[in-house]
């Protein structure tokens, strides 16, 4: 008998249909991936299994857990199942734990609730479980609070809570999306070994085909609430039967056509020398001296005109701080930054800085947070025109905005819309339009595609490549995703703990990393093409 059978599951909220006739089967000891883009209904499927759907949602169909239909179970029956038979791990570890309770209490709580164990017994079991997920007693006693742990450690606690009673079914909803690649690899390994050890079934929800290809035995692809294709993972991903699946896998593997880089000559466009940024440390005790932390530590590099460089590293390695200093949004503690040979790190807020800002702009990660929600696209895109020596007339302004909107693949008619009237991908185009309107030489792009769905991401990467050729722009891509680095940059710089540990041609560094940090990064980054070819070889 299958562990979990979902039959004709439909969910709607009011008149909006969220899921339609979803079928799925999961066996013991198996990993089944549920994959789709945002809005496809992945998370709703998980919440339906837990019967934790939002208020006002209506559900139809059958959900059988070990043969017993739980779709019609009462709330008190579900309370007995949740945590005991079905465990769940969530996407956002930073907020998934109660900040005012110790990790010991939070792991032991479920044990006591379901088994009626005494406090001491439950704590003993909680201790064993925390040991198992990689939080040893010496560094992680039970009386630690969540805020004393990092994101990866907190996700381990969440996994300990979910697995404390060895549930038959574990649901993991994008468990590593909020973590960097190295932590992602560790957490995925942990989940894999827990599944094998306890003969659990794991329902893994993800948007990342590389992760899924590595982890899952079977895969179900959802699109707009319906199952598009389902089957054995390697088969589905290497030879998709459905056109949507085919587009999806192709987008995940997409490499844009980049123009061949021109030979660099003359003064570098950007040169960074011995740059250091310290932040005042927080005092641990009243009378101890605060030790400043070095976010960026003695960093030097150069960038030629029209060159694309990727700055890669784990989260917290200092790459975003470096980018802010390059853009003169933050001041270095020591060292210098030159743009076109002129120092910009020590300019007062005046004309000279205004001149420099014309030559450099920025594109952010979050297409939602990077626009003032109360201004129209025209005002938003035109904002950097403020930097020009001669302010354009309203007519000229509209013309310039229209030109850049067309250049990034939007229509001049979009000028009078508000940000919320654009989709995520369109908003990122808008952000690019804003960045290029002054005709800059350098654009810094901070994780520009990591919040986007794969198909949109492929098109935005194409746009970057297109603009490089047409405008002769130099790009500094800041990313934790080596696939973006591979796709976009001829040169890569690897940062770790504030320092540059390695730099060189992208292919050389990523195929043959020399430093410890770069090797770890490459090893942890899943590469869909490599995983699929490896698995196909295994199967012969």
């Amino acid at each position, binding site marked *: 008998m299958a562990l979990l059978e979902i039959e004709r599951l439909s969910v709607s909220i009011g008149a909006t249909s969220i899921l339609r006739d979803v079928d799925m089967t999961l066996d013991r000891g198996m990993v089944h991936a549920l994959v789709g883009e945002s809005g496809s209904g992945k998370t709703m499927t998980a919440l339906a299994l837990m019967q934790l759907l939002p208020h006002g949602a209506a559900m139809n169909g059958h959900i059988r857990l070990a043969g017993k239909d739980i779709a019609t179970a009462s709330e008190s029956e579900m309370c007995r199942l949740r945590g005991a038979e079905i465990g769940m791990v969530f996407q956002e570890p930073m907020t998934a734990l109660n900040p005012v309770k110790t990790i010991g209490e939070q792991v032991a709580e479920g044990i006591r609730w379901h088994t009626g164990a005494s406090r001491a017994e439950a704590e003993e079991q909680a201790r064993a479980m925390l040991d198992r997920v990689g939080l040893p007693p010496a560094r992680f006693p039970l009386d630690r609070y969540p805020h004393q742990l990092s994101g990866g450690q907190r996700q381990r606690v969440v996994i300990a809570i979910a697995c404390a009673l060895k549930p038959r079914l574990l649901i993991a909803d994008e468990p590593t999306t909020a973590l960097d690649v190295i932590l992602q690899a560790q957490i995925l390994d942990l989940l894999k070994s827990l599944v094998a050890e306890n003969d659990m079934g794991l329902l893994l929800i993800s948007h990342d085909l590389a992760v899924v290809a590595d982890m899952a035995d079977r895969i179900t692809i959802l699109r707009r609430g319906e199952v598009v294709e389902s089957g054995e993972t390697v088969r589905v991903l290497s030879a998709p039967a459905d056109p949507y699946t085919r587009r999806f896998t192709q987008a995940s593997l997409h490499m844009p056509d980049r123009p061949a880089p021109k030979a660099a000559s003359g003064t570098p466009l950007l040169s960074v020398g011995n740059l250091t940024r310290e932040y005042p440390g927080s005092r641990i005790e009243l009378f101890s001296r605060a030790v400043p932390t070095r976010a960026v530590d003695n960093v030097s590099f150069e960038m030629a005109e029209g060159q694309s460089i990727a700055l890669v590293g784990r989260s917290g390695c200092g790459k975003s701080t470096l980018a*802010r200093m390059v853009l003169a*949004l933050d001041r270095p503690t020591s060292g210098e930054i030159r743009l076109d040979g002129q120092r910009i790190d020590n300019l007062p807020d005046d004309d000279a800085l*205004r001149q420099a800002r014309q030559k450099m*702009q*920025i594109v952010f990660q979050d297409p939602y947070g990077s*626009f*003032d929600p109360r201004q129209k696209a025209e005002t938003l895109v035109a904002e950097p025109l*403020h*930097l020009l020596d001669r302010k354009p007339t309203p007519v000229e302004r509209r013309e310039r905005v229209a030109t850049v909107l067309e250049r990034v693949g939007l229509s001049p008619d979009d000028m009078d819309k508000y940000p919320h009237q654009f989709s995520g991908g369109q908003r990122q185009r808008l952000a690019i339009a804003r960045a290029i309107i002054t005709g800059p030489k350098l654009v810094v792009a901070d994780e520009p595609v990591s919040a986007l769905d794969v198909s949109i991401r492929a098109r935005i990467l194409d746009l970057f490549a297109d603009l490089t050729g047409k405008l002769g722009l130099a790009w500094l891509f800041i990313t934790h995703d080596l696939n973006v680095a591979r796709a976009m940059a001829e040169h890569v710089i690897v940062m770790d703990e504030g320092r540059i540990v390695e730099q060189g041609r992208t292919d050389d560094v990523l195929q043959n990393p020399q430093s410890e940090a770069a090797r770890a990064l490459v090893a942890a980054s899943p590469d869909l093409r490599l995983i699929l070819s490896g698995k196909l070889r295994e199967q012969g």
Partner: protein
Amino acid sequence: MTIGQALRNPSFAAGLAITLAVAATALLSFAWTPYDASAMDIAAKLQAPSAVHWLGTDHFGRDILSMIMVGSRNSIAVALVAVGIGAGLGIPLGLAAAARGGWLDETLMRLNDLVFAFPALLSAIMITAIFGPGVFNAIVAIGIFNIPVFARVARGAALSLLRREFILAARAAGKSRSRIAVEHVLPNIANLLIVQATIQFSLGILAEAGLSYLGLGSQPPMPSWGRMLFEAQTMIGFAPHMALFPGLAIVVTVLGLNLLGDGLRDVLDPRLQEQR
């Protein structure tokens, strides 16, 4: 969002209706009241509500409805000016604290603590002890207390806004801090400030009533709701209507403003707006 959509929010509609009615009554009192609000008629004293005197008369035979109508001017004027003082000084201070940070922020927050240690009533007591009683005390005391309230709201909202990426984008576009505060921050926190203003307005009405009840607010012969209640107190045994109606006037006015504030909070919430 149109006004028609907004009126579908019951709190907003009811609050707006009550508030407009109170404002209209105050305006009407300049042109017409049933009787002269200060005209005494000892022969007609302490009458219960009747067709002649709708809300009855007080111990001097003055018409209570007329006094309530005229008294509303006083309540509204004091609360309005106090909100103006609080918003006019508090919002710029709060924005400056959020945008500049550092010692300025710390100093302003400590000043906040200081003002919170002097509830409006204490300030009014000190001012009265020196300058004698008067409506000016009420305005200054309530106004001073409003400053840190607006400063805190503006600062808190601005801080969370200043972390957003569009602020960094504006800086990359060369905009100065003060220009960012005016162009990006203020329009985005205006909703919150409007809601806060209605709340402070209603608190101002309550505080003014309390002060004039104690004789620390407006002085005779100008009628005021608080003092009407003070005068009613000794006569509660045989003329309860004297206490009932001025109190109801306060409750209705404050309730209207609170409903309006609650309604505005929902109506102006961008999260709800985007769904529409």
